[in-house]
């Protein structure tokens, strides 16, 4: 089980701020996870249809899409940042 947390328009399109999911066998990297999520429904597909722009953090630290999920407990998924 991992907790996924969504922000900004990723959160709005998926329609929830967070959820717990089972990571299926075969989902190893961040990229695998994003592709898996896109199979869960059209709201996910709408949020993640351009995965190359999506940013991901594991345990609140930025990671590349090639990173292994390992035993991640909290995975943040969000658009490029626009603070400051």
């Amino acid at each position, binding site marked *: 089980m991992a907790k996924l947390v969504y922000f900004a328009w990723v959160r709005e399109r998926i329609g929830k701020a967070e959820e717990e999911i089972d990571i299926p066998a075969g989902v190893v990297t961040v990229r695998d996870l994003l592709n898996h999520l896109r199979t869960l429904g059209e709201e996910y597909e709408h949020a993640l249809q351009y995965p190359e722009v999506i940013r991901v*953090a594991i345990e609140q630290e930025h990671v590349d899409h090639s990173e292994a999920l390992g035993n991640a407990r909290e995975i943040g998924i*969000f658009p*490029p*940042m626009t*603070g*400051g």
Partner: protein
Amino acid sequence: MDHPTPTIRVQAEDFDLPFEIAALTAGRHDIGAVVTFSGLCRDEQGALSALELEHYPGMAEAEIRRIGALAIERFSLLGLTAVHRYGKIMPGENIVLVIATSPHRQAAFDGANFVMDFLKTSAPFWKKEHAVDGAARDWVSAKDADDQAQEKWQ
């Protein structure tokens, strides 16, 4: 060499610039330069009624703290404060504050500038614009210019 610890806060309420400067400088005689950066909400020629700032609680503060520590080490700063607000912010109001102190002027300028460049592209905040007409509410797009601004430090 021991480096000072940056003062980092993520908060809904406004910040108090003179208070934050005093916290870094009071009683010290080794500071030659204080540079402050305040980022404000613009109304985009009257089109914008407010900004809404969303953030990733915990990570937002941790990320700014990481950037602040990098700046202190890289520019040998004597002190650094960064405060970023979240929630609804009206035109003319403050969004973000960075203060850098150092013995000499260029390090203080560079330290504050560096923190802003990295904060823009790395700190997990997102701006949504509320239009004056009440209808359109759009997320601000990330700017290539911000990525380029960060690259100047590499």
